[in-house]
């Protein structure tokens, strides 16, 4: 019975926790500029995410090690420091984007500028981590995240041309705005394949004392949770394509994106959009702050654990406190949250190989994965996608900065 509860909670939390500022922004921009043509990167990104989440859960269940703990063991410090450093820099930008998203959601509802909300949001997130147990971050916030189901309702109500949606599943070349098209592909892949999810998921599995009997649960959570989450991102794209594409609106700010569901669902559409943006971002802020704290502590051998008293795990707590203290300032300076989001997602895509290739090598090493090493499909799909994402990102980022977005 306990396992069934863990299974349902696992699936529910991955659905609730899937949509955050990156997927909302990239999916809505993709829908507005290219209608249904960009559904395929969401599908590809979700498939890779399913493999990665399943692998990190399997690693935790088989070896009782978290991803970064195993990476430090296997590759040694002077290799481990490379993913640690690059990820910390990129993830700081992602965190700033999430704070920007949550702050903007509050501006939508209150009219007070997002720049004033950035610090309170970071403080609130820090307070939840400081006082709240791990279950709060892993269970309760994503449960509220189910409000993001409003995008499914909106997409269905807007009644898109479903055959065109199906065509979007197949990768096609853009007819216009080539650079912007490929930049959005990079954005979507960077938003969907979020490395911090692996560190967070595997730490939760180790803290939840998973063992080999959990392998099936792990597979179900990864497949059902992530694919339903991917469906949510597609729903955002479909709603945006139905509303903004025919109207010829180019999305340059969250205040435009906020109008997406108002046509179909009236004021409910507006307020539920704001709630989805806020809760999605809050969930991501908590997960990112914890993921970096896990990665640093496990990599350097410190005591760690969100269920521990802060005094017992001082350096673990110091990491997420320092990160949240630094997070809001880019937004307070008034840099547009959407611009920070696009750049952080593109940089995530560019650094995917550094974060994921060592993990793939780990999952093929019987010392760590036991007799559950990777199948060749998993290896090929993941490595192909992240190398493609990296090359695309390196090509499109300069273009996007040159082209002025």
């Amino acid at each position, binding site marked *: 019975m306990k396992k069934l509860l863990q299974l349902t909670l696992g699936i529910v939390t991955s659905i609730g926790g899937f949509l955050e500022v990156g997927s909302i922004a990239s999916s809505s921009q993709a829908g507005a500029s290219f209608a249904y043509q960009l559904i395929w990167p969401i599908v590809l990104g979700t498939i890779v995410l399913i493999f990665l989440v399943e692998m990190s859960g399997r690693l935790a269940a088989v070896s009782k090690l978290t991803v970064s703990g195993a990476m430090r063991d296997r590759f040694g410090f002077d*290799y481990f420091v490379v993913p640690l450093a690059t990820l910390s820099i990129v993830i700081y930008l992602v965190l700033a984007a999430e704070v920007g998203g949550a702050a903007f959601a509050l501006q939508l509802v209150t*009219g007070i500028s997002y720049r004033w909300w950035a610090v309170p949001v970071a403080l609130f997130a820090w307070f939840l981590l400081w006082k709240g147990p791990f279950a709060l971050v892993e269970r309760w916030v994503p449960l509220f995240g189910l409000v993001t189901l409003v995008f499914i309702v909106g997409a269905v109500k807007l009644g898109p041309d479903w055959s065109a949606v199906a065509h979007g599943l197949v990768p096609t070349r853009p007819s216009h705005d080539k650079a912007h098209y490929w930049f959005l592909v990079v954005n979507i892949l960077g938003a969907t394949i979020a490395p911090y999810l692996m560190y967070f998921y595997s730490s939760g599995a180790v803290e939840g004392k998973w063992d080999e009997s959990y392998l099936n649960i792990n597979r179900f959570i990864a497949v059902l949770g992530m694919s339903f989450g991917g469906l949510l991102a597609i729903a955002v794209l479909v709603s945006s394509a139905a509303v903004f594409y025919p109207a010829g609106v180019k999305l340059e*700010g969250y205040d*435009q994106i906020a109008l997406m569901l*108002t046509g179909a669902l009236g*004021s409910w*559409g507006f307020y539920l959009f704001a709630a989805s943006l806020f809760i999605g971002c809050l969930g991501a802020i908590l997960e990112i702050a914890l993921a970096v704290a896990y990665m640093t502590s496990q990599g350097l051998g410190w005591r760690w654990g969100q269920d521990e008293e802060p005094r017992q795990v001082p350096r673990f707590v110091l990491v997420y406190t320092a990160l949240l203290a630094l997070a809001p300032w880019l937004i307070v300076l008034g840099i547009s949250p959407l611009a920070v989001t696009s750049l952080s997602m593109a940089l995530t895509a560019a650094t995917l190989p550094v974060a994921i290739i060592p993990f793939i090598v780990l999952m093929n090493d019987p010392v760590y994965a036991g007799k559950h090493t990777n199948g060749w499909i998993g290896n090929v799909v993941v490595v192909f996608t992240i190398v493609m994402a990296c090359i695309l990102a*390196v090509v499109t980022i300069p273009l996007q900065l040159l082209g002025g977005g």
Partner: protein
Amino acid sequence: MRCARHRGVGWSGVVIALVALAVSGCSRSPRDQAKKALESLHSWAVSTHMVGERWMEGDVPDAYASKALQSFGKKVRKERGKIASGKLPNDMKQFLAAGFDSTARSADSLLSIIDKREKSATADILKQLAAQARAADSVKERLGAE
């Protein structure tokens, strides 16, 4: 066997070639610039129209509507500024300048209407914005046909 520590793998050459190819492929001809500016004018006119319409129907709170219109106004004026520096023919520059100005004016008047809460006056401003968007579209069609 501990995995061999290999960094700086040699395919950076491949990446540099890709960047060079991509950058050369998208130089901005005046026609492209005009097309982009017209699309942007259309987008801002429609966005302003959307905010006004949703506010009139009570789907969005006043606080959001005024905040959004203020930010649209700022961005439209910024685009207006960029027109002067662009390499565009004069008649196109005039059309765009007029278009951006009228959109900005519509946004400002919508703002004052929201402050005074007289929803009845929004209808004709929305008509102006819709007309502006259509005008931008027709110029783009004619441009495309040349």
